[in-house]
């Protein structure tokens, strides 16, 4: 059997089987899902990109198979999926409806693989919708406020998906084929108006999943209220499907005459990233903070893709991979805190660093990667992005990105401080480190973040071949991307990562040694209650934690921007619609005679109009 089919059968069949297994032998469920996912990962890696499967459904020709671009995203999906499932086994322990959870979890991973292996628009859409509803079922898993939150996700997903579908059928009506290669080959032959419409409609679809403004309003709550083990995949991999779609559209369906589309997309993404960052800064719940941060980060990715320069696209894809790595680590870490402490509200928790040191380490590394500080991978991506934008003349865009990433330092610090630093309150004295099966995935992912900073080549290598499949030929003087340690822009300016790393690590170690060697042994730990306090004596029960209104001054400065949320407009629009619908309802007023009169009136209308319009 073709390994592509086997992959999907394993995934979907396994999902159903996990559901059934949970009913009868719950004990085996965890082992089963992890083994299944590992098996699927193995199968995925053993499936090359040359494998193609052709078949017809309902007279529609379809084709499955990975390209090097989708393979890149596939790697994200299976790696994150496996790690998140391992993490899940501990995180979800003791919760109910686990069969439901794992079934939808596996469904959505399977659907993502399906999307990536689709070489035609119909199967793409088919799997896209499966992904939508399976992820939706997990979003509403917790059951809080489903009506607003879940529906919002579903409505926006549906709007997105249906605009995609609209584009798909329009494309087909012109080209007569759903195959991506046919579409790419002949898209520019059709009218330019339709061309733009198709691109925009498709991008609405992908924009919803990648939470681009103004279609992002579902995302914060959806990310933050799903179980964290899923959010890791949701934000890490699922939102990347939108990015993947953007890549398909921007590189293949937008002709160079329509460069304005690229600009608009880039600017929307930039505004998204700035606003989302601002919102992230003023959050006090770690999950929501990360949710907004995800939206912002995907903004960067899309800016990179939309810049349509070699370096920019590479930056976008690199950030996509890296975002998957560090953001899922962060969600996992927050999940670990949630599980061990019971809340992620940063106004309530503080000072967990000594209780959950490994979680802290993973968080710290991921935050450094997120903030884009050297020497971790985030810097590599950011650098490439900036340089690409500057060298290609997107002067103001680069300012937006800078603004967003500078403001990102604020929430980066907030999340570290909010959960791990600050006053160690006695109520958290009993908190223990998360179990090993949660730590290991986090630490593995952190390891990737670290490695990507000094040797980004191992990520850039597959990205480079992915870009080749998008039609970007390398113009940079590198023979083997594996060995890449110096970043170049098109003006020839560079950053030597090895020098950066040597310098930072060297200085750090020397300084650390300098401060540690003499006297550290004699130092003793004092609690955080024993601090300089202008003479006041602080008692252990005094709560000295500074957590509420953390960035109030900043919030005041940016308040004019945040005053009116886009969400409110949607709510008003929805209310207006409902009122309209209620008005329409009045038509059925309950009186049978009226219905009869409608019939007569309609007939009379038809007879009068019929002679005029239907040519009798």
């Amino acid at each position, binding site marked *: 059997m073709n390994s592509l089919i086997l992959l999907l059968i394993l995934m979907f069949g396994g999902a159903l089987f996990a559901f059934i297994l949970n009913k009868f032998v719950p004990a085996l469920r965890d082992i089963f899902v992890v083994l299944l996912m590992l098996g699927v990962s193995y199968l995925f890696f053993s499936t090359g990109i040359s494998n193609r499967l052709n078949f017809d459904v309902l007279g529609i020709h379809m084709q499955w198979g990975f390209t090097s671009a989708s393979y890149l995203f596939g790697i994200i999906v299976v790696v994150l999926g496996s790690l998140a499932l391992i993490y899940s086994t501990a995180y979800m322990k003791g919760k109910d409806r686990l069969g439901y959870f794992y079934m939808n979890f596996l469904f959505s991973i399977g659907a993502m693989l399906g999307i990536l292996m689709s070489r035609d628009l119909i199967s793409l859409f088919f799997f896209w919708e499966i992904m939508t509803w399976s992820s939706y079922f997990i979003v509403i898993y917790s059951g809080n406020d489903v009506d607003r939150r879940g529906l919002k996700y579903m409505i926006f997903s549906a709007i997105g998906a249906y605009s995609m579908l609209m584009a798909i059928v329009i494309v087909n009506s012109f080209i007569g084929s759903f195959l991506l290669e046919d579409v790419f080959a002949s898209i520019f032959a059709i009218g330019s108006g339709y061309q733009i419409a198709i691109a925009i409609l498709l991008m609405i679809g992908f924009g919803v999943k990648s939470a681009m403004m103004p279609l992002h309003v579902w995302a914060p709550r959806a990310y933050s209220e799903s179980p964290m083990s899923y959010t890791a995949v949701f934000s890490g991999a699922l939102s990347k499907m939108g990015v993947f779609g953007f890549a398909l559209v921007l590189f293949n369906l937008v002709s160079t005459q329509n460069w304005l589309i690229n600009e608009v997309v880039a600017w929307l993404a930039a505004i998204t990233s700035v606003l989302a960052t601002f919102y992230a800064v003023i959050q006090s719940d770690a999950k929501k903070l990360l949710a907004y941060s995800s939206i912002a980060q995907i903004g960067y990715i899309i800016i990179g893709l939309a810049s349509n320069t070699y370096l920019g696209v590479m930056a976008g894809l690199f950030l996509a991979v890296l975002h998957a790595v560090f953001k899922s680590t962060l969600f996992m870490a927050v999940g670990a805190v949630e599980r061990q402490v019971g809340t992620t509200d940063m106004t309530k928790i503080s000072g967990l*660093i*000594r209780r959950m040191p490994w979680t802290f380490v993973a968080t710290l590394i991921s935050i450094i990667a997120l*903030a*884009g*500080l*050297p020497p971790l991978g985030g*810097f590599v991506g*950011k*650098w490439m992005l900036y*340089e690409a934008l*500057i*060298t290609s*003349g997107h*002067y103001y865009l680069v*300012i937006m990105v*800078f*603004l967003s990433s*500078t403001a990102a*330092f*604020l929430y*980066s*610090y907030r999340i*570290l*401080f909010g959960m791990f*630093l*600050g*006053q*160690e309150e006695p109520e958290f004295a009993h908190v223990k480190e998360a179990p090993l099966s949660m730590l290991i995935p986090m630490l593995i992912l952190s390891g990737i973040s670290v490695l990507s900073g000094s040797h980004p080549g191992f990520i850039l290598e597959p990205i480079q071949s992915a870009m080749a499949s998008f039609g970007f030929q390398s113009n940079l003087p590198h023979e083997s991307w594996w060995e890449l340690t110096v970043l170049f*822009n098109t003006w020839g*300016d*560079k*950053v*030597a990562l090895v*020098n*950066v790393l040597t*310098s930072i690590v060297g*200085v*750090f170690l020397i*300084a*650390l040694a300098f*401060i540690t060697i003499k*006297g550290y042994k*004699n*130092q*003793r*730990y*004092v609690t*955080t209650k024993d*601090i*300089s*306090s202008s003479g006041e004596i602080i008692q252990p029960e005094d709560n*000295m*934690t*500074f957590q509420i209104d*953390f*960035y109030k*001054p*900043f919030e*005041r*400065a940016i308040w004019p921007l945040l005053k009116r949320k886009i969400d409110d407009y949607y709510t008003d629009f929805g209310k207006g619609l409902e009122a309209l619908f209620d008005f329409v309802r009045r038509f059925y007023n309950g009186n049978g005679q009226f219905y009869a009169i409608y019939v007569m009136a309609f007939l009379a209308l038809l007879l009068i109009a019929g002679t005029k319009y239907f040519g009798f």
Partner: protein
Amino acid sequence: MNTILIQILGALATILLAFIVGMFYGGAHRKVIARIQNRVGPPIYQNFIDVLKLYSKETSINHGVMQHMGPVFAITASITSLMFVPILTDGNWFSNLNFSGDLVFLVYMMVFGSLGMALGAGQTGNPNSAIGVTRGLSQMVGYEIPFVMAMVALMTQFHTTSITGMIAVQQQSGTWLMFSNPFAFMAAIMAMLGMFSYAPFDIVTAPAEVSSGPISEFGGKYLGMMMTSGSIFAFVKLALFVDIFMGGASNLVVLVIKTFALYMIPVLYGVISPRYRTEQAITYFWKWPLFFGFIAILYAAF
């Protein structure tokens, strides 16, 4: 082997230079303020004495590993940034890693230190530290933007993102960049006021209300290291500005003159200014400096 040794020696010399110059400038700062306020003020070498004293102290308590590492982060950042900033325009002695990084990298490297220090400050659990940190970071968002705009303007104007490239441009044309793109210079200088966190932007440390901000829980060697880092950092910023806007320095004397002149801008501006609240500071940066930055980019691009 020999080259590496020379490199390391060169690096050490650079650090020493930066440290000494930075420390003296700190002393000068105090002296100037005192003079203007009609006081005698501490001697100009007072900071050396302080640092020496602090290093010789034995630290006996800490609040955890992050506090221990905070100063290390800070000094790592300042020294690494120093390594990437050209000190002199010619001669290999102070070149270090000048050609290995560019402006964007440097902007990020400069943030690294404050974030690392903020982590250390965070673990102390002192609310004053945390308050100081949040103010500092918020203010940073304010001044980074005009600064970056100025940088982007220059980069687009001269098609290079590296500092050495910009020095080369100035040497070729003979015009300082502050004249080539005056708007960028205006924006950058106003941003620099914020970077130094002197009055009116000194709410971060705000000695009167929050003890002394982020470093309130640090003492002994920790504080010493912080001060060292701060001095080096001050020098890095000045050297960077000199390199970019004032054509760099061909020898140490020129360097000192130029940096000192530049340094006096925030110092003198601070002396005559009251203090801004954080949001006022941010809005300050987002008014005229932002406008200048905007114009600068337009000027550069067209």
